[in-house]
C-alpha cells in the first residue's frame, strides 16, 4: 500500500521515487503554488496535484479547465473555493489548510466535503495523536520537510532587492536573534517563509488512521532524498521536532498581566 506522499522537488529523481513501492508523488502545479522552485504542468502529473495558493476567481476558472482533463489521482489544496470545482472529479481530495487544521472537530467537519485533511504540524505529538484517534476518515500527517511559517502575497525578496539596489534573488537564507533560521522562497505569486531546519516528525510514522505520511522535501539535496524516503535516514540533515515536543502558548495576556 502506498502510504508515503512525497513532494517532487527534483526532476532527476522522479523515476527513482516512482520505483519505491510505498511512495505516491505530489507535484506542485505550475502557476498554482508558492514556495517551490520546481513546478509541473498538468500534463506531467500522474500522481497527486499540489495547489497551495490562495486563489482569485480568474485563477479558479483556469484551474477548473486544467483539472477537467487531468489524469491525476488526487489533489492537495489549500483554498476552500477549490472544493466546488473538484467535488465531482474522480480524484482523491485532500485539504491542506496550513496552520488551520488543528482540532479533531473542525477536521471532521471538513471531512464531510473532502476525502482527507492534512493535520497542521503546528501541534504537539499528543495533539496530533488525539486528532487521528477521533477523526472520521484517515488523515495525512506531516513527517518530514521544511515547515511553512508564513505565506505572503507580497514579493518580499524582490521588493527588498529593489529597495536596496541589489540583484533580485528569489531564494534566500536568513536568521534572527535569538538564533532562528529561515529559508525564504518567492515566485510571482508570493513569498513563503520556512523554518531553516527540517521538521522531523518521523516518530509519527507508526500512527493509525493515516492515509499518507507527507514528506515535503523543499530544497533537500538530491543525495539525501532516497535514503530518507527508503530508510528514514536523516543523519546528515539538520532537523528539529519543532512543535511536536514544544506546545505553543494560548493566553499570552495572562502572562503579561
Amino acid at each position, binding site marked *: 500500500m502506498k502510504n508515503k506522499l512525497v513532494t517532487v522537488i527534483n526532476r532527476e529523481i522522479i523515476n527513482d521515487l516512482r520505483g519505491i513501492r510505498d511512495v505516491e508523488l505530489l507535484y506542485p502545479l505550475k502557476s498554482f503554488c508558492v514556495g517551490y522552485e520546481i513546478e509541473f504542468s498538468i500534463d506531467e502529473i500522474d500522481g497527486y496535484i499540489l495547489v497551495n495558493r*490562495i*486563489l*482569485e*476567481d480568474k*485563477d*479558479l476558472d483556469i484551474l477548473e479547465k486544467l483539472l477537467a482533463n487531468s489524469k491525476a489521482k488526487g489533489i492537495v489544496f489549500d*483554498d*476552500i*473555493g477549490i*472544493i*466546488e*470545482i473538484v467535488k465531482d472529479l474522480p480524484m482523491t481530495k485532500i485539504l491542506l489548510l496550513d*496552520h*488551520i487544521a*488543528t*482540532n*479533531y*472537530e*473542525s477536521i471532521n*467537519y*471538513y471531512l464531510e*466535503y473532502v476525502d482527507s485533511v492534512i493535520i497542521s504540524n*503546528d501541534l504537539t505529538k499528543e*495533539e496530533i495523536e*488525539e*486528532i487521528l484517534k477521533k477523526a472520521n476518515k484517515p488523515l495525512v500527517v506531516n513527517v518530514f520537510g521544511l*515547515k511553512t*511559517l*508564513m*505565506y*505572503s*502575497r*507580497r514579493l*518580499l*525578496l524582490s*521588493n*527588498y532587492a*529593489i*529597495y*536596496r539596489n541589489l540583484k533580485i534573488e528569489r531564494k534566500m*537564507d*536568513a*536568521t*534572527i*536573534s535569538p538564533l*532562528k533560521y*529561515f529559508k525564504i522562497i518567492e515566485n510571482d505569486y508570493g513569498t513563503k*517563509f520556512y*523554518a531553516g531546519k527540517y521538521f522531523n516528525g518521523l516518530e509519527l510514522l507508526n500512527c493509525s488512521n493515516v492515509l499518507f505520511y507527507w514528506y515535503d522535501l523543499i530544497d533537500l539535496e538530491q543525495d539525501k532524498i532516497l535514503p530518507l524516503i527508503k530508510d528514514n535516514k536523516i543523519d546528515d540533515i539538520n532537523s528539529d521536532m*519543532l*512543535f511536536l515536543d*514544544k506546545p*505553543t*502558548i*494560548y*493566553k*499570552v*495576556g*495572562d502572562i*503579561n498581566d
Partner: protein
Amino acid sequence: MTELLAPAGDFEKLKFAFLYGADAVYFGGQNFSLRANAKNFNLEEMKEATTYAHSINKKVYITVNIVFHNQDLVGLDEYLKYLDSINVDGIIASDILVIKKVKELNLNFSVCLSTQASLLNKRAVKFWKNLGVSRVVMAREASKEQIKIIKDTGIEVETFIHGAMCTSFSGKCVLSNYVTLRDSNRGGCAQICRWNFNVLDKPDLTITPKDLNMIPFIKDEIDLGVDSFKIEGRMRSIYYISTVILCYRRMIDAALNNKLTSNLENYYLNILNRCANRESTPQFYDKLPGVDEQYFNSREELSNQDFLGLVLGYDKENKMVILESRNYFKVGDEVQFFGPNMETFNWTINKIYNENLEEIDVSRHPKAIVKIPLNKAVEKDDMMRLKVFDKNDFL
C-alpha cells in the same frame, strides 16, 4: 448605508467609538478571541456593552476567531449560547467548527467569516454561505475586481479600510510560534514580521508593510456596495480610535454627499498618519503592493504626544474648558479641539489653571485636571491635540 465598524478593546473604547461615529463595534471575550493582550470583555461586560449599544441603536459583533486546538474546545457551546442569550448582533469567526455549531445550536445571531479565512473567491463564498455565513470579511489581499465579484454573489461584504497590515495572509503565519512559542492564531502574535532578518553579506531583510488606508477609494467602495468598513486596532488608545473613526465618518458622509475632494482626503490622510505614527497606503486594492508599500529601515516611527487632553466639561459662565491632561502642554502652545459634534478649530493656550484655580505655566502631569480659558463651547469627551496641521493648509 455602509456601516462603519470600529474596534473596541474595552468598554471605554467602545463608548468613544460610538460617540465619534461608529455604527457598530467588534470586540472579544476573554476566551476564544485573538488579541489576547487586549483587555477584552468578561461575560458581564459583554452583556452590558451589548445592552448599551442597542440602547443607542448600534450593533456589536463578537470575535470568536481563534484557531482551536483540541483542548480549546471545552466551553465553546456554552459560550456561544451565552452570546445568543445577551442578544449580540453577530460573531466573527474563521474556524468551521464555530460556524457549524451556530447552526447546530440554532442560535439567532449572524455569522461573519473572519479575514483569518483568507477569502478571495466566490466559490469559497458559496461554501461558507451554505454553512450559514451571512457576511464575509475579505482577505486584506483582495483587489477591487475581486471585491466586486464577491459582492455580486449577494453576500454581505466587509472590508478593512484602515489599520495595521499583516505581512502574511491573515491566519497563514506562525512566525510568532516558531520564534517565541506564542501562538499567533490564538491571540499571541509577537509581530515577528516587524523584526529585522539578518542575511549574510547583505543589509538586513525587512518585510514590514506600511499600514492600510483606503482614503482614495472610500467613494469607490461605497459604489461597489461594500456593506461594512472595518477599522483595525483593538489594542489602540481612545485617542486613536476617536481620531480614526471621526476622520472616516466625515469622509464617508462627504462621499455620500459628493463633497469628498482630494484636498480633503489629503487633510485626513495627514491626520491619520500622524495619529498612528506610521505611514499608510491603500495596499492591495488597486495593485500588487511593492516597494512603496513596505518599510525598509526598521521602525520608521516617531512617537508623538499629540493627545493633550480629554474634555471633561465646559464652564459656560467663565468660558473655561475643563480638561483631563494626557500629555505635556504649556502656555503659548497652538492646539486644536475636535469632537463628534463640532468642526475642528485651532486655539492658542494663553492661560492654564490647576484644579485649585491657581495659574500655572505648564501642565505636565497626565490625568491632572486643568482649566483653560476658551471662548468656544466644547462638549464632554471632545479632545484637545497639538496643532500639527491646519485644515486651511489643505483646502
